[in-house]
Every structure is written in structure tokens, then in C-alpha cells.
């Protein structure tokens, strides 16, 4: 169990001009569960592999418990790694697979047996110990991969998209096990994923990455309520946030869709007509049949059922926007409705810099 810190970590791959990771700085507390979230090619896997020691660090430092570990081999770092493709040793049976890291560490045989059996029981693998990986399903294989990773009691547990290859039911099962293991052992865990649902449901804090840069690192509530820029706002939240172009009207007031919207954000330092991007979440809208002050006229183009709510696709000035409404609202495609966003639910971003305005 370790505290993990990155200082100005840069990764430039051989033969590439662009940095895959552009100077990352972050701190993961001892026993914390964090997720690195981002689209493919954002640098999240490179970051993980540098922490694991599978990839050389171009510049900067990674520290475990305030000790620089740049020069250590993956084994010396005492980390555990679970892969998207399970990466099991197919010629060996399940017992040998799980025992493999212990054997490498020279753990005595009876102890190996005891620990493998213990971890096998935890992951419901006891009945499978004599089988070969090829005979098992994806869900079972990933359980073995997790068991193998955790049998060693690592300082840091790294997971590289471990659920990507799995069907919905197995995903839920493995997710619960990962969460349970973390609650029990409190091993510092870093979970890389492109699926925000996984990140949000598992992690204490989420690091959002894009184009090799950390966009924001915070709790789910922070990412949701105070996204640091347009990318984070657009990446977090399902259905995705709506964006519209607007202009600063006065302090606490922007003009958008030819109407004026009040907001809780002070705009005193911005000149009038400064271009802003207005963000509002689909589930933070109010839809009415009557026009009110500040509401925007919209045409309903699609009505979809989404569990306990209904999702409307609204057309305003030729652009589509989403809104979630209660199932009892009587509305059908072609209707004219009025969209209203309360001041506390209006998010503003500087259109030029894409950064949030608070």
C-alpha cells in the first residue's frame, strides 16, 4: 500500500514528435481508488504503463511513498496489473497461473498453496484450479487475472480496462468484486477505462485525460458540477450535456437562443458580448407547455423512453438538444414546448479558451 505521485511526467514515443503524455502532475493517496478516464489515445494507458514500469519515462518522476521509482523494474515496484486481454499463461493450469508471481518471488510451497487457495475462494475459482485458461469463459478468465494480480499483495494495483471484453452481467459481477476487494484491503488502485459509468461507480476520484493532458482530477461530484472545461463537461454525463453559443449580457446574465438566461456565475470581469459557450445538462432542464420568462421555444423531434424518465430531442434554430422529462408529461413529436434552465444549472465556458467560467 503506497502513496503515488507523478511529477511532470512526460512520455514521447520513439519516432513520434507529439508527446503521448504532456507533463502529468498528480497525487494518489494511500488506499485511494482512482480512475483514469478518457477516449482512446488520450495517454491513459501510457500513464499506467509508466507507473507499472513497462514503459520508460521520457522525463519527470514517479514516486511511491516519496521515493523515486523511475529506475526500478516492474517487479521491484511490487505492483499488480490486470489486463484487458487477461494475459493468462495458456499452457499452465489455473493454479499455476495464480501461483506464478509467488513462485517468482520465491515464496515457499505450502505458503503458495495456502494463498492461492485463499484468493481462489474469494473469486469463486476453487472448482476451476485444475483447468486450463482456454477452457474458460471471458468472465472466469478475468477473475483469474484479478486473482493472480492480487495474490501478491501489491503496493499499487493497476487495472487496464479489465471489463472491456465482457458482457453486461459479467461486468457487473467483476465490478462488484473489484470494489469489494478494495474495501477489504484498501490497496491503492488505479483503474484505466474509457467507460465513464465504470469510472464513476468505482472510483473515489476520477482523472479525465485528453490529448495527453490531465483535464481535471476530482471527485465525481466535482466533475459533474464544476467541470474545468468544455471537454470534461462533454465527456462526463449520460446523456451528454447540451452546448449552445451565447454572449455575455451583464453580470449574472447571458444571451442565448435570442433570450436572456440568468446564471449564478459572476460575469463582472467579462466585457459585454464576450463569446461564451452555455452548457446545460439534459436532466437539469424544465420543459413546459407554456411560455415563461427566459424560456426557449423548441420543437420536439424525438421522444425516447429511458428507464424512469423520457428523453426528448428538441430542435431549436436547426440544432438538436436533449432534455430528460418526467414520464407523465404529455408530449409527442411535432409538439412545441418551452425549455427552461434554472440559474444554478447554467454552466459557462469561455468559447475561445474552452475553460470554465466560475
Amino acid at each position: 500500500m503506497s502513496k503515488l505521485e507523478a511529477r511532470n511526467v512526460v512520455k514521447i514515443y520513439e519516432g513520434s514528435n507529439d508527446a503521448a503524455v504532456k507533463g502529468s502532475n498528480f497525487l494518489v493517496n494511500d488506499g485511494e481508488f482512482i480512475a483514469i478516464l478518457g477516449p482512446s489515445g488520450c495517454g491513459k494507458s501510457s500513464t499506467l504503463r509508466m507507473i507499472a514500469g513497462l514503459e520508460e519515462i521520457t522525463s519527470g518522476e514517479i514516486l511511491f511513498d516519496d521515493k523515486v521509482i523511475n529506475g526500478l523494474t516492474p517487479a521491484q515496484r511490487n505492483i499488480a496489473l490486470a489486463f484487458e486481454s487477461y494475459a493468462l499463461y495458456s499452457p499452465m493450469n489455473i493454479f499455476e497461473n495464480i501461483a506464478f508471481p509467488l513462485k517468482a518471488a520465491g515464496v515457499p510451497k505450502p505458503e503458495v498453496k495456502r494463498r492461492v487457495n485463499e484468493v481462489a475462494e474469494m473469486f469463486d475459482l476453487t472448482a476451476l484450479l485444475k483447468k486450463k485458461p482456454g477452457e474458460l469463459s471471458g468472465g472466469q478468465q478475468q477473475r483469474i487475472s484479478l486473482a493472480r494480480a492480487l495474490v501478491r499483495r501489491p503496493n499499487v494495483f493497476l487495472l487496464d480496462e479489465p471489463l472491456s471484453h465482457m458482457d453486461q452481467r459479467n461486468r457487473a459481477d467483476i465490478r462488484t468484486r473489484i470494489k469489494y476487494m478494495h474495501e477489504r484491503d484498501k490497496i491503492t488502485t488505479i483503474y484505466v477505462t474509457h467507460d465513464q459509468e465504470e469510472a464513476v461507480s468505482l472510483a473515489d476520484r476520477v482523472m479525465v485525460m485528453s490529448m495527453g493532458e490531465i483535464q481535471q482530477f476530482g471527485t465525481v461530484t466535482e466533475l459533474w458540477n464544476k467541470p474545468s472545461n468544455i471537454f470534461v463537461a462533454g465527456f462526463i454525463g449520460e446523456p451528454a450535456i447540451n452546448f449552445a453559443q451565447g454572449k455575455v449580457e451583464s453580470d449574472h446574465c447571458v444571451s442565448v437562443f435570442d433570450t436572456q438566461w440568468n446564471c449564478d456565475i459572476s460575469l463582472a470581469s467579462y466585457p459585454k458580448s464576450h463569446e461564451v459557450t452555455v452548457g446545460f445538462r439534459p436532466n437539469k432542464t424544465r420543459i413546459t407547455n407554456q411560455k415563461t420568462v427566459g424560456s426557449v421555444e423548441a420543437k420536439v423531434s424525438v421522444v425516447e423512453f429511458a428507464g424512469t424518465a423520457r428523453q426528448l430531442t428538441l430542435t431549436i434554430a436547426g440544432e438538436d438538444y436533449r432534455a430528460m422529462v418526467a414520464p407523465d408529461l404529455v408530449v409527442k413529436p411535432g409538439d412545441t414546448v418551452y425549455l427552461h434552465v434554472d440559474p444554478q444549472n447554467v454552466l459557462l465556458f469561455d468559447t475561445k479558451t474552452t475553460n470554465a467560467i466560475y
Partner: protein
Amino acid sequence: MKKKKFSWKRVVFWIVLISVVSLFVFPIFWVYVTAFKTNAAIRSTSLAFTPTIENFVFLFTTRNAQVPLLNTIIISVVSTLLVMLISIPAAYSFARYSPSGNTLLFTTISTRMFPGVIAAIPFFLLFRDLNLLDTHIGIILMYVYFNMSFATFLMYGFFVDIPEQVEYAAMVDGYSRLDIIRKIVFPLAKPGIAITTIFTLIWSWNEFFFAFLFTGKVAKAVSVELSLFWGATQIQWGAMAALMCIAMLPTLAVAIFLQKYIVRGLSFGAVKG
């Protein structure tokens, strides 16, 4: 058991199957039958004959056929060992680090794309100057040259198919690169290594052209010896067939016992996962 219904389709299927198989198997059958016939029986039109081993006795007493047989064993085994010793690490390296974007691998395999006869004259002159003509080491080097690129190329495919993440996992688990190759990569690549070894071995065993050109007396291979029964005045059918059936044994053994392995090895890439 259920009685199968008669159908013309099945009849045609079996007729075609039997004729194709006979076409392939008949020469082998002929060789094995002829080897156990006397000269008189070979020339006779009657199908019935009394088996004899006089051809084999002649081979190993008068003709000293054990010498070319031993030569072929030495040449093919040593050359195959050398090829594997070079090609396994080469193929693994090509699969894991390819700084040249594999143009180097292609250049290597391209040495197998021209007809062997093109290389024959320059090699002959070179070998003559190096005093390598009619030596075991000379023909072994020749075979290493020809098989190395092919073996590397074939095994490259097997190594590429082994997911790199498995090696990462082992690295994290505390194994050195060499340990990983020994404990993880090698067992996974075994079918590929086996099939490549067999191909290389059989190729060297059967090779005639270079053996004929580059060896004469000392390092004469069994494939060359076989051609020498065809004299100016007579053809020693019986002795030739007897040596043939010995020379064919390794190939036949491979074909029969390793059938499944070969099919699996060749389709290794297609059926993974």
C-alpha cells in the same frame, strides 16, 4: 445402427476420393513393393512374388549405402539445429522490436524468392575458392543459408500471435526477459517451433539440386546416391527402391504421426483465441 441411404452422390464422392488417393499413394506403394522383389520378379508381369531382402543386403554390403545415409542425417540435423538456433531469436526479435518496419524481414525472406539455380554458380565459385566443395560443413552452410530466412519468416508469424500483454504480466510478476522467453514464450510458440523444425529438416533431407552440385564423394547425400542407380547400361530398380524406401521413412513418419500437429501449426494464426 441406422442404415445409410444409397445415393449417387456418395458413390461419385468415393470414386473420386479413391482415385485421387491412389494417384498419390501408388508410387509409394510401388517403391515399397519393388524393394522386396528380386530382379526377376521386378521384370515379371505377374503380380505374385516372394518377398526378399536381397536388395537391402546389397545396399549395405556392396554399395555401402550407410555412408550417404549417415551424411544426410548429419547434414540435415546439424543444419536444422543451426537454423533454429539463429531463427528463433531472430523471429522473436522481429516480432517484438521492428525498428525497420519489417522491411528487413522482407529482405531476408526475399532470398527465397529467386530460383535456387540462380545462386548456384556464384555459390559454386565461392565454395571452390573456400575449399568447401564436397565437405559436410559446406553443404550445411548452404542449407542454413536457404532455410534460415524461411524459418525466421514462418516463426515470426507464431511469435507475433503471442499477445505482448502476457509478457508484460510476467515482467510485472518478477521474471527477467530470458525467463519470460523460456517459461512463457517458448511453451506458447512450441507448435510453431515444431512445425518449422520439421519443415527445415525435411527440406534438407530431401534436397537434391545443391547436394548434387556441391558434393561428390565425401559428403554425398542419400538423394544424390539415389540418382546413381541410373547407370549407362542398366537401372538397378531393386536396390534403388530399397534405398528409396529408407530415404522416405522420415518424411512418411512425419506425415503420418504429425498430421494433426501440422494442420494445427499451419492454421495456428487463424484459430487462436
